[in-house]
């Protein structure tokens, strides 16, 4: 068996620098100069004025800008506090202060979310259990455009994304999504919402580098045509180094990705808003796959590869306001994604049309209904390691929903009932009804509860895949020849949730959500006789319950110091159905999720325009992957010498030189650890 070199030949650092950086995770010489420069800046006379601790004079701030400023909320007037769902919002400010460079990093602090970095370019992200690189129970949207792949009902995390500074907020709802735009919102919905073009005017550029981030640059320009049309264009480029393997050597997982796009808003008149936006991206990821090789004594071979990813999308949206109580939205988008690795390639085109109408009926009812159609088609090519039969597909999805929000007792009790009805090519008709109730006894307290049914519809991986997975057994290597099953049914969920939010005083707020999920028809395997080639079929042979709670609080110790603790508890109890012979899937799936997670974020606004943020995080072990629990810290210190310039230094995963977060389970990639990393960043607006 030929041995492949694992050294990344593009790395130009000297052997000494590389060895020191990898062994100690310390900044290199060049990075120290940058760090010292940033730390010494406050001492330079010309660039500093005495930082004003008085509030800025708001009468000097233009109206549009006032709308963008955060305030300290005095009472529980926040409309989000009355929502009968486990919702968290990651704001633009949270993203900036966390130093997150991509969407999975921005999700780490959200209670109930499991975010694990598999290698330099890949992530395993889920909510309330069932995490995996190919986690399939989470719906992810970017500006209303679905970014999950019908191949496995999950997300390739290089697909969604934009310039981080253009994200207005990320809404995370744990639990079945009620009026989400598409299918598969089983355990949660994530919607990444970018800013209006009006809020991103002028130039903004940022650039930086660190020990893992070999260099990144972002630039955006926003302007307007006349008085009603606002636009922006942006471009980003990121280049990341590889991660270490558990044995200390570098893995072959470095990557580079460029993105660009535009966003245009036309405020045609009081009642009509048109939006047109589009993005394109291209990049490549280094990988080393463990491929199926019939000629090898272990049936495996290590194959380094470069995976090319490319995509583009264009989306148009029309929002029409009929009256103060009635609004209509129509959205049409086209999306193309393409990925090409040596073991597998796919090019997928999707067209999606969605309509939604919201109106008040009488004094007590607020009705929302919607209809959507999606057509998705792909050309694929595979290899003995993984392929789909048939290779190409043409998938149709019809979905509709209706929801009524009834005011039972004005200001006190609201009941929301609705259902989603879908038809897909694999499992036919699916009905997902749900009900939610919210009780607000006064301005400070909200209690809510909900019951909903959700389904995870079959994907091409369930129906059409042909996949050779090599397992080491005491008798030698075995090859599970896994094939899809055209009789595979949807996985089903009945979710029972409750929650409580309280705002006892100005400086304290607390949010608690609990859930009890009952799953049936979960995916498991049926193995036939044979050795070493074991024919295996995917079946719906498992069921189970998951339950837990998510708690988060905001504590204002001082006007300039805020703490955000959060805690997540998850218990998973999966069982094989009585006639199933699969005794491995249940413990394997359970053990891929941490039982407890804790995080504590401290945000400080210090004098002289310095801000300091630190997040301590604890994640419990993943027993079936042999990944230990870990505690680590991310920190960011930033300085604004002028209102247009920000210098920041970010450290991530600071406690240990490296730690494991996940191990690949299905498509075998190299196992890597997440290293301690730093980067410095300059942001300039004008």
């Amino acid at each position, binding site marked *: 068996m030929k041995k492949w070199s694992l050294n990344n030949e593009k790395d130009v650092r000297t052997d000494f620098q590389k060895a020191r950086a990898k062994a100690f995770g310390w900044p290199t010489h*060049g*990075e120290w*100069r940058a760090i010292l*420069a*940033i730390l010494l*800046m406050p001492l*330079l006379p*010309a*660039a*500093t*004025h*005495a*930082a*004003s*601790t008085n*509030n*800025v004079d*708001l*009468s000097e701030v233009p*109206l*549009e800008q*006032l*709308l963008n*400023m*955060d*305030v*300290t*909320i005095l009472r529980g*007037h*926040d*409309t*989000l506090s009355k*929502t009968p769902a486990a919702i968290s*919002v990651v704001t633009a400010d949270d993203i900036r202060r966390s130093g997150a460079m991509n969407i999975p990093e921005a999700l780490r602090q959200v209670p109930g979310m499991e975010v694990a970095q598999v290698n330099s370019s890949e992530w395993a992200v889920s909510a309330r259990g069932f995490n995996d690189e190919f986690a399939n129970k989470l719906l992810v949207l970017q500006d209303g455009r679905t970014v999950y792949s019908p191949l496995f009902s999950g997300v390739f995390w290089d697909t969604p994304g934009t310039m981080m500074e253009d994200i207005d907020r990320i809404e995370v709802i744990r639990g079945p999504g009620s009026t989400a735009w598409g299918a598969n919102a089983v355990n949660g919905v994530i919607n990444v919402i970018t800013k209006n073009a009006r809020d991103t005017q002028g130039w903004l550029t940022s*650039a930086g*580098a660190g020990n893992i981030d070999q*260099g990144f640059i972002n630039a955006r320009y926003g302007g307007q045509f006349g008085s009603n049309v606002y636009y922006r264009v942006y471009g980003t480029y990121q280049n990341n180094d590889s991660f270490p393997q558990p044995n200390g050597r570098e893995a072959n997982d470095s990557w580079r990705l460029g993105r660009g796009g535009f966003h245009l808003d036309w405020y045609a*008149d*009081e009642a009509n808003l048109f939006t047109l936006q589009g993005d394109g991206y291209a990049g490549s990821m280094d990988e080393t796959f463990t491929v199926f090789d019939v000629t090898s004594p272990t049936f495996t071979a290590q194959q380094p590869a470069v995976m090319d990813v490319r995509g583009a999308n264009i989306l148009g949206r029309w929002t029409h306001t009929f009256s*103060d109580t009635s*609004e209509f939205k129509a959205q049409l988008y086209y999306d193309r994604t393409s990925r090409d690795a040596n073991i597998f390639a796919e090019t997928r085109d999707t067209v999606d049309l969605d309509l939604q109408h919201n109106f*008040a009926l009488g004094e007590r009812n607020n009705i929302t209904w919607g209809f959507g159609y999606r057509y998705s088609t792909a050309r694929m090519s595979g290899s003995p390691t993984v392929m789909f039969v048939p290779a190409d597909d043409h998938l149709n999805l019809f979905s509709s929903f209706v929801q009524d929000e009834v005011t039972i007792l*004005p*200001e006190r009790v609201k009941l929301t009932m609705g259902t989603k009805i879908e038809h897909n090519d694999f499992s036919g008709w699916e009905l997902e009804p749900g009900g939610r109730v919210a009780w607000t006894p006064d301005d400070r307290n909200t209690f809510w509860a909900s019951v909903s049914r959700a389904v995870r519809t079959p994907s091409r991986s369930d129906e059409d895949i042909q996949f050779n997975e090599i397992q080491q057994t005491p008798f030698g290597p075995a090859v599970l020849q896994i094939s899809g099953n055209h009789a595979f049914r949807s996985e089903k969920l009945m979710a029972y949730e409750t929650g409580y939010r309280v705002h006892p005083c100005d400086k304290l707020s607390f949010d608690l959500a609990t859930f009890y999920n009952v799953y049936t028809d979960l995916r498991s395997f049926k193995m036939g006789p044979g050795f070493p080639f074991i024919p295996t079929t995917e079946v719906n042979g498992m069921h189970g319950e998951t339950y837990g709670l998510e708690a988060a609080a905001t504590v204002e110790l001082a*006007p*300039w110091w805020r703490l955000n603790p959060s805690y997540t508890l998850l218990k998973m109890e999966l069982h094989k159905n009585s006639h199933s012979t699969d005794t491995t899937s249940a413990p394997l799936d359970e053990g891929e999720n941490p039982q407890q997670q804790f995080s504590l974020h401290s945000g400080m*606004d210090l004098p*002289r*325009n310095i*801000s300091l943020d630190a997040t301590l995080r604890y994640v419990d072990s993943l027993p079936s992957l042999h990944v230990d629990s870990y505690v680590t810290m991310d920190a960011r210190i930033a300085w*604004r*010498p*002028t*209102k*247009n*310039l*920000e*210098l920041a230094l970010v450290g991530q995963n600071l406690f240990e030189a490296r730690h494991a977060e996940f191990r690949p389970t299905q498509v075998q990639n190299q196992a890597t650890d997440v290293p301690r990393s730093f980067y*410095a960043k*300059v942001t300039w607006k004008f």
Partner: protein
Amino acid sequence: MASLSLNLIIGAAASLPGGVRGQDAAPSEYQMKAAFLYNFVKYIDWPESVLPEHAPLVIGVFGEDPFGGALDSILSNKVVNGHALIARHLTLLRDTTNCQVLFISSSEKRHWPEILKTLEGRSILTVSENWNQFTQAGGMICFFTEDRRVCFDINDNAARKASLNISSKLIQLRKKPSA
């Protein structure tokens, strides 16, 4: 390369003039609402008969005052379109007709139908907070908070009925509360 360009940029920053802002403590919810009231006035036209040239423009707060001194301090010495701005605190219903903008505190929730009757036919901009779907009940502008930001919704039909002309620039900025 990265560290070299950082040094260049830092060198340039040392000679840039500029005010210092951004890391100041965030304004409070009511400082922000006071700032909005001040700004609304710039985008609304009152009929000449109600607000003659050079007459003072009164912003009244009816009921419990949530602003602290924020409204008084933001309006002090301000003039918009030739009208000096004055803040007034009102406790009697009959005094509410003597202003051009009336902010109705949530302490007066229960009296809203009475207030609406008193203001009928008068060109007074009514502003309040998101209770009882204020704008659906005939109120003109309502504040609500979403995710640590203050937003507002506008019922321009009610404003037109009161002969108030709200500029489309202001209407563009309105937002619908999600609850």
